[in-house]
């Protein structure tokens, strides 16, 4: 039987289409301007269709000495942060998922405590400085390596794995590490995928810790570079107040170059996100309801 299209359906489609357009417009605008000439941009900055197509902006920004280095830094930070973080989540969540573990409640409360209270910026800076990590990529990896929220998600997920599987393995003579890595980890792939995505996006987008801990341009992550490209000149203009002479003395990057930088920076996440976004939704639901 053919389903009747109701007025409500049309309204839903219309609203969703409008919301989609609102979301897509900035992206299309950035993409179109990034491959348009500067003159074309000046004639119509709000364009969503390129005009006078040129890839000069990409050529210029790709030859920027800081871009390649910051790209590499972000890749290194993301890979190492995600790998170490996931490993730590696994080895921490597994014992804490055992209800019979002595001291489990205290440990979990200590973890929850860090969700509510933390030392703050200054003590963290002292800590990182004492560890000799200032101006190293390690300062961008370790402070955000472990999230209490993610750990609780993983604990909850592991608690749902049937105890009988582990008992059967034990009867067959499996050791705890064997059970963890051969049975529990393969069964925990959905939560591992979700937390990997959370952590990867977090590392990819982070810039503030770099402002605080990094001194040399060689160690800038990609997002700090992007922020400088987009907002740097504006900040200097604010510093200059209304002084026209000093404002004109600044190195203002053409908009097409800024837009090309945005495209280059978001491209990797944009490419993988459609395939992984379901894990985001799943991640929030995982372990939240126990039945």
């Amino acid at each position, binding site marked *: 039987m053919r389903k009747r299209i109701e007025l409500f359906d049309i309204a839903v489609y219309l609203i969703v289409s409008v919301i989609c357009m609102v979301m897509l417009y900035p992206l299309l605008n950035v993409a179109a301007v990034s491959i348009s000439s500067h003159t074309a941009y000046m004639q119509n900055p709000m364009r969503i269709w390129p005009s006078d197509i040129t890839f000069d902006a990409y050529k210029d920004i790709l030859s920027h000495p800081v871009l390649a280095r910051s790209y590499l830094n972000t890749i290194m930070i993301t890979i190492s942060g995600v*790998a170490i973080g996931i490993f730590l989540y696994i080895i921490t969540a597994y014992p804490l998922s055992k209800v019979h573990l002595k001291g489990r409640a205290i440990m979990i409360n200590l973890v929850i405590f860090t969700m509510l209270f933390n030392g703050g910026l200054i003590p963290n800076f002292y800590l990182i*400085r004492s560890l000799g990590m200032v101006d190293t990529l390690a300062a961008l990896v370790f402070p955000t390596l472990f999230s209490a929220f993610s750990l609780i998600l993983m604990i909850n997920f592991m608690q749902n794995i049937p105890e009988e599987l582990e008992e059967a393995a034990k009867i067959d003579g499996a050791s705890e590490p*064997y059970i963890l890595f051969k049975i529990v980890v393969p069964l925990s792939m959905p939560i591992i995928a979700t937390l990997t995505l959370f952590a990867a996006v977090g590392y990819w987008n982070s810039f503030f810790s770099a402002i605080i801990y990094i001194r040399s341009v060689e160690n800038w992550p990609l997002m700090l570079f992007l922020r*400088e490209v987009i907002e740097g000149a*504006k900040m200097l203009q604010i510093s200059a107040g209304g002084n026209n002479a000093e404002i004109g003395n600044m190195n203002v990057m053409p908009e097409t170059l800024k837009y090309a930088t945005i495209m280059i920076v978001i491209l990797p996440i944009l490419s993988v996100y459609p395939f992984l976004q379901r894990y985001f939704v799943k991640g929030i639901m995982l372990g939240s309801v126990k039945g």
Partner: protein
Amino acid sequence: MKLKKAIACVGAAVLLVAVTACGDKGGPAEIDDPKPTSGAAGETAKPKVNMTIMGEFASSNLSETDKLLVQSIEEATNTAIKFDIPPSTGYTERLQLSLTTGDLADVVWFPSPDDASFLKAVKDGVIIPIDEYLNEADNIQNYSYDISWDALRVNGDDKVYGIPRTTVIRSDGYWFRKDWLDKLNIQIPDNNEITFDQMLDIMTKFSKEDPDGNGKHDTYGYGWAAQPDKSIRPVFQNELGLYGWQESDGGEYKYMNPQYDLNSDKYTKALELTAKLFKEGVIDPDGPTLDGGKVLEQFQSGKTGVIDGFAGHYETFLNAGKQINPEFELAYVFVKNEQGEMKGLGQGTGLWGFWAVTSSASDPQRVVDVFDYMLSDEGWDSIYTGIEGHDYKVENNQRVYSATPLETFVRKNMVRRANDFMFFINPAMSEELKQKLVPNIEKAVKRIVMSKDRNYTPAIAKTPPYLDFNKKFSEVTTKIIIGDAQSSEYKEVLQDWNTKFGQTYLKEMNDYIDQIENKK
């Protein structure tokens, strides 16, 4: 096998972090290995001093000309200078962190003597007074404005807490689209000065008579922007005689700013005019949402025909405009006030930020000496013209400059000489062009009427209730300009302000100005 692979992967990641953690920390901004000294007499006898300068510049990397300049300063002053240049988007955070944690450079840049973190650092002894070190710093003394020193005496102890990064105090004129003027057969006098009525007439023609000839009504007379705090202010204050704090013509207070004067209509007239121009589409209707950069874009792309600007930017603006429209031409024009006088408001204290010596400085005298050297004839020549062999060559006893150096991030932004407006003129510029531009800059310097407040903020204006109330001024100003309120509503807010805060504010400001004026 999979377990081994997983452990191997994590191991590799740890190794990766370890390698990066122990990696080379050296940045190109550092000049750690200066050449042996052979600098100015007297300096070589002093032991070598290391110092770190933390500042906000357009690039965190030193350019080639920056490096050469720093090298020349190091040689002349027997120092090893390292730059710490945080990203400009995070300068404030880094500065505050440094002041709080004591992780300080020898000298740090602050945007203004009013900066709360600076004032706290002075109180805490993190920033030290430099009076005793200035005794031998003749160049700094000679090439700073007197009013800058007053601004840097912030602790009530009559001591100076910073080295000025001077700017040239001016009141700039306007850039006009000359090709539009030509199309509309409008002549500008040879002295580049027009009356305010002529200005209004030209702007109206630019917005109504299709100066770009595209057959569309898509141009505006004047391009303007919101303030950095997103508020908007009436336009053409110079021309309407609004020169900030001046001696009043009578009344309760000796000094008064028409903006706060219940008995003056000057400010409300300015609001009315801006509202009228806004309504008629003579000024860019997008102005309230734009910043300075966007205003320039609107001008270069042919949406607006007039913007205010610095005369020394002729080449930059012209080239950018011509890329979009080959017919783009520029004229620089001054507009007389309603009384026919060539006057313009000179604001501030001659500071474009300043350098503060910290308690961590190993040798504060040498820090001051470095800045003094930069302002000496030898140092200034390097700052202005660059370094021989890179920025220019000497042929037949004449300097032949290389192509316009664009990357003078540090070189041209460390110090300035008061009133030396030639600094803004590219040394490679042709004599003909110099003759064209210099008189305009000179005029912008000479026509200033200084506001007597010197950027002073009375204590009451820093209190939360005052700051809350201040939003009412922004609100009513915006409403009047965009036509949602009558200009009389400004006076109502002003009356309210006067009752709640005004008397204290005006008294404090008058006391301050009196004290400064009596010092003269």
